[in-house]
């Protein structure tokens, strides 16, 4: 790096695979995922933790990866959108997003799917208010959220929903 930053090793698990990453310690987790690991499903929408497009799960908790220095994920288990489906089989939330029209332009969708997965992991039978507040950290400009709510309801009607 021409800005001369020192690099360190960070060990973590991403979507079940263990990695030792040689990175600048204050690099954003978002950039490390996208640029070093080529996991481009995680999106940048605002870079300041407002929009949630960069949402990932760290040890099962939903976080904005644009706000996380990579140093903080030492020893952590990270799940990105690429790790949500089981191989070719979509997660119930993903399937419901397709069926209910929860994805339009798709740019918020990876973060929104992870937010929904996280919501259902913590609150398997959410009320309408739970859903509205559970997803309020993820902005969607296309849908007006209604079809996303439909998708969450449909996903939790199906068995076997877990993060």
């Amino acid at each position, binding site marked *: *790096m*021409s*800005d001369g930053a020192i690099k360190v090793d960070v060990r973590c698990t991403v979507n079940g695979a263990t990695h030792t990453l040689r990175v600048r310690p204050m690099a954003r987790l978002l950039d490390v995922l*996208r640029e070093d690991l080529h*996991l*481009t*499903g*995680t*999106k*940048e*929408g*605002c*870079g*300041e933790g*407002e*929009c949630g*497009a960069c949402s990932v799960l760290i040890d099962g908790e939903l976080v904005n990866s644009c706000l996380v220095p990579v140093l903080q994920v030492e020893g952590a288990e990270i799940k*990105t*959108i*690429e790790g*949500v*489906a089981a191989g070719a089989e*979509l997660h119930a939330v*993903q*399937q419901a*997003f*397709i*069926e*209910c*029209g*929860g*994805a*339009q*332009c*798709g*740019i*918020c*969708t*990876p973060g929104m*799917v992870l937010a929904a997965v996280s919501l259902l992991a913590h609150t398997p039978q959410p009320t309408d208010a739970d*859903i*509205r*507040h559970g*997803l*309020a*950290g*993820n*902005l*969607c*400009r*296309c*849908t*007006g*959220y*209604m*079809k*996303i*709510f439909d998708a969450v309801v449909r996903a939790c009607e199906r068995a076997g929903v877990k993060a």
Partner: protein
Amino acid sequence: MQTEIVGKPVPRKEGRSKVTGAARYVDDLSMPGMLYGTTVRSPVARGRIRAVTFGEGIPWDEFVVVTAKDIPGENAVALILLDQPYLAAEFVNHAEEPVLLLAHEDKHLLERARRAVTVDIEPLPAVFTLEESLAGKEIVWGEDNVFKSYLVDKGNVDEVWTQPDLLIVEGEYSTGAQEQLYIETNGVIAVANAAEGVTVWGSMQCPYYVHKALLKLFALPPERVRVVQCETGGGFGGKEEYPSMIGGHAALLSWKAGGRPVKIIYDRAEDMVATTKRHPSLTRHRTAVTREGKLVAMDIEFVVDGGAYATLSAVVLSRGTIHAAGPYTCPNVRVRSRAVATNVPPHGAFRGFGAPQSIFALERQLDKVAGAVGLSPAEFRRRNFIREGETTATGQVIREPVDMAGLLDRAFELTDYEAKRERFARENAENNSTQKRGIGFASFMHGAGFTGSGEDYLKSIVGAEADAEGRVRVLAASTEIGQGTNTIFAQLASNALGLDYDLVEMAQPDTGNVPDSGPTVASRTCMIVGKLVESAAVGLRQTLQGAGLLTDEYTQDEWREACRRYVERYGALKSFSQYKPPPGVHWDDEKYQGDAYGAYAWAVYVAEVTVDTLTYETRVDDFVAVQEVGKVVHPVLAAGQIEGGVAQAIGFTLYENVVWQDGRMINNQMTNYVMPTSADLPPIRVHFEEQPYQYGPAGGAKGIGELPMDGGAPAILNAIEQATGVRFTHVPLMPEALMRGLNEKA
């Protein structure tokens, strides 16, 4: 063989790639040897560039640097006029105007370098609001600051005012700027050099607009320029024109770098501060009405703030002008409209395209007129709704069945409007709660397709091709930006051919491979381009039948076999279809009279609100959108369009406030420019009435995309008026304005 594919909620074509994160947007792409590009912008709103200096501590010899002098062709973004430069050469006319471009392979160093460049500008007097521009405080564009003006003149308004027994009601209304706020910012990758020409990949709505702009910028023939749309993370109008700018910038850097790929991705702050927004507007109404509540005259003055360059303002103004008098019959209508220049970044396309501004004013004014006559807002409108056979402000005879009163009835039934209106009035008066409630509505129409003769000029073309396995690909430059182009085009083509939906795909919009089906704007993709998709698809069948390979009735296997034999014998199987205007449509560009649009969608929207008179918060509790949009091709996508548009309209009304300082947006972050979250919105309840449009695809679809932006603001402010008794006239209505209004009343 699948029939009845139209009207079914088939899965979105690219749904799987979007929910798995596999969909590739431009920032997800990388090329060997790629550089990152950035833009050095003007720090002031208007002035003359004295010097550009490059600061210390940056290895400048490693950088690609582009100024106006490096432009091979013309330094102008080709759109309507050629007044906007790609890079300011001597003068700047708005804050954040591009002055210089930099590229480097290290994006962290690039950002440091950008901050190390100083553009020294001698400031000139500037105008920042449309009022200042109209007053001629300073002439900043042309001879009079006016980009464009229109006059719609029906009957004779001036003879009305002196007639006896008429009530005359005046009103003034204004709307603020609004940021499109697509979650994917503007971005492109370009490869450009003299040997290979120019190629741009990017997030965009209109590949052929970018293509046209690059031809001029590089002085190249059409075949040397190629523009490819990547998966696009929302547009809403914000990626109609701006991709021509950022695409040109990346291409200029690549050209200077000998053809190394250059990627430019704006961060959120740059995207918000530098790119287009909805035009701020000012509307003045003078309405004459009989004591029985019949409209006699509407005199409307409509002004939009175009920003520093002409860009699309003339067309935005046109749509706003034509929609200014709404779905009402009135014998005398005059609309005088102007788009004026200010020294702010050019305002541009945003869903609704001028219509939400003028419709807001009209629907607020009509509630005021109703009050003056002593009628309820609903009864007043019922007495004036346009009916089949009557004429609009431009003299267009409505030839389709239209039932605004029926839509109103339906919307009221769904919301229990009349009972609530009465109950809220009583409760607001009787109790001492700080929670005041209101219900209001707006009735409106939205024309689909380009205005007037626009579609005749565009002459859009769509192709279809079939391969030896019988798979059909639609060839069009119409883009999937979330609204469902890929899906509905496949529905329309498979429906026309009686094939399975899965057998039809849309080709990636690539000007090297698809014909120009026109821009993805103006609610035209389904109604206008969709019709061409159908006829191009039918052309494939006719070709196979003409070759004696297919009979009138066929199975999917017979289709496949026919395609296989055709391709074997003759090679590629392709068919093209070009736009022709429906019969009997006439438009006079000079007089602004005639058939402004081929078809209109009609709607009544009802909003229910609670206003907290202690905290000055307003909450929309319920929202019902009833519209007649012709045949609904895909019920889930169509409802998704309405819900998303209503959400943006609620943002426009209550949350989204662009704060300006010296012509620059200073709240250019999602932290302080606030769009609605999932916790802020009411249930949005969508109901369609289907009245097939005889020239629409699939048995009669019309346009839908922009419509839902139009009705929210006036419906909500009409409801707030019931809740508070205060006649607010500006959106966004921020809590501070609500407080002032309530204090003045008290």
